[in-house]
C-alpha cells in the first residue's frame, strides 16, 4: 500500500513521516516519532493508556489513523512538563499523592486529566471520577489518582489542597 506523507505538530514541534493508511496514530507516535510515553494497552478503545490530546480533545490514539491527524496539534505525555522542564501541577500531583503504581496507565491518565482540568478547572470528586472513566488502572484503584488530580486542580487555581479523609 502506498505510503502517505503526514505532517502535524506534536508537543509544539512540527513533525513529519511516511505512513500507510492503516498505521494507527499510536504507532506513528511511538515508532516513527520514538515517543514511547504514550502506551498501548487494550488496543480496543477501552483502557485509555494511549490517550493523547488532539486539537483540544482527549483521543484514544489506538482508534485513529495517523493520516487522520494530518495538520493537527497534538500533546502527548512528553509535552506535559512546564516550559522550564519542571514538573507540571499534574505531574507533581501524581508524584506527591502516589497516583501511580506500575505507571503503565499514568501517561493516559495525565493527558486526560490535563484536558479535564482545562474544561473544568475545579472538578468535584464525582466529576473527576466520571472525567477519567475512560482510563483504566489495573494495579489497585483510583483513590490516589483522584487525589493527584485534586492536588493539581488546587495548585492551578491557587487554592489550598485538603486531602480528603479515607
Amino acid at each position: 500500500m502506498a505510503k502517505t506523507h503526514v505532517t502535524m505538530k506534536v508537543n509544539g514541534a512540527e513533525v513529519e513521516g511516511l505512513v500507510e493508511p492503516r498505521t494507527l496514530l499510536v504507532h506513528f507516535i511511538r515508532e516513527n516519532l520514538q515517543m514511547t510515553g504514550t502506551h498501548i494497552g487494550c488496543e480496543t478503545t477501552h483502557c485509555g493508556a494511549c490517550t493523547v490530546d488532539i486539537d483540544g480533545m482527549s483521543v484514544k490514539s489506538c482508534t485513529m489513523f495517523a493520516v487522520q491527524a494530518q495538520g493537527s496539534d497534538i500533546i502527548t505525555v512528553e509535552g506535559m512538563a512546564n516550559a522550564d522542564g519542571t514538573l507540571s501541577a499534574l505531574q507533581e500531583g501524581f508524584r506527591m499523592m502516589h497516583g501511580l503504581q506500575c505507571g503503565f496507565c499514568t501517561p493516559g491518565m495525565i493527558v486526560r486529566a490535563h484536558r479535564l482540568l482545562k474544561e473544568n478547572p475545579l472538578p468535584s470528586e464525582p466529576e473527576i471520577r466520571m472525567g477519567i472513566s475512560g482510563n483504566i488502572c489495573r494495579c489497585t484503584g483510583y483513590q490516589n489518582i483522584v487525589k493527584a488530580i485534586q492536588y493539581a486542580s488546587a495548585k492551578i487555581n491557587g487554592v489550598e489542597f485538603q486531602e480528603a479523609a479515607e
Partner: protein
Amino acid sequence: MIPGSFSYHRPASVTDAVKLLVDLGEDARPLAGGHSLVPMMKLRLATPTHLIDLHGIAALKGISRDGNLVIGAMTTQHELLASDEVAKSMPILHEAALLIADPQVRYRGTIGGNVANGDPGNDMPALMMALGASYRLEGASGARDVLAADFYQGAYFTALEPGEILTSVSVPVPAAGHGYAYEKLKRKVGDYATAAAAVVLTMAGGKVATCTIGLTNVHETPLLAADAAKAVIGTSLDAATLKKAAAAASAIMSPAADARGPVEYRKHVGGIMVTRALQRAASVAK
C-alpha cells in the same frame, strides 16, 4: 492489532463521498468517528479496502433548529453535550449521550455513526424511535428521509442502500414541559446496555396524556414498545399499570444471551428499566 490494508479517501463534500462510495463499490466503507469500525478492523471482523473519511465534510457538522432539531451526522456526542439547544429543548438527548462509552470516545463518536451502524447495543437508535426522528439518506439519485422506526431491519442491517450516506438526523422537538428519561443498566462505564429504555411522555391533570417507549439492546434491532406505551395512557402510573407496562415491554424483547446475562435476566432487567424510566419521566413532566 493492526487493520488490514486499505486506501484512504477524504472527500470534501457529500456529493464527492457518494461518488466514491458508488464508484468503489461494496468494499468501500464510510468512516465517521470510527469507534465501532476501527476496533472491528483491528480484529479483522471488518476488512474494507477503501475508507471514505467523512471528517473533511463541513456540511455534515452542526446542530440547527428549523422547527425540528436537525443534527448533522458528523456531530459528536461531545458536541451534543455542549449544546445549549439540546440541553434546553431535548434534555433526554443530553442524558443519553452522557451514557455513551467514556469521555474520549464521546469526543470522536458521532450521532450519524451511532444511528447508522445498526448495532443493537447503540444507545441513540431506540431514543430516536421514541422521539419520532427521521434520518436523511443521500445517494447518487438524491436524498430521501426515512423514519428511525422504519430504518432498522436486523442486526447491522438497515434501510441504507449501497452508495447512500446518512447525512443528518431530524428530531421533532417534544412539547414544552414533557417528561423524559433514559434508564440504562450497564456493567461498567463504557459498556453497552444490558438493557435500556427511553421514555418521552406528557402529563395532563396527573395522568399520562402521550407516551412513547424505546428499548435498547434487548432485540436484534432497537424496539418501540407500543403496547407498553398504550397501557400507561390515561393512567397515573399506579403500581398495577407499571407492572402491566413492564410485562408488555418484556413480551417483545428477544435479547441475545451473552456476557451481559441470560435471556430471562435481560428481559427482566428490561422491564425494570421501563418501569424506572416511566416513573422518572413522569416526575420531571410539568
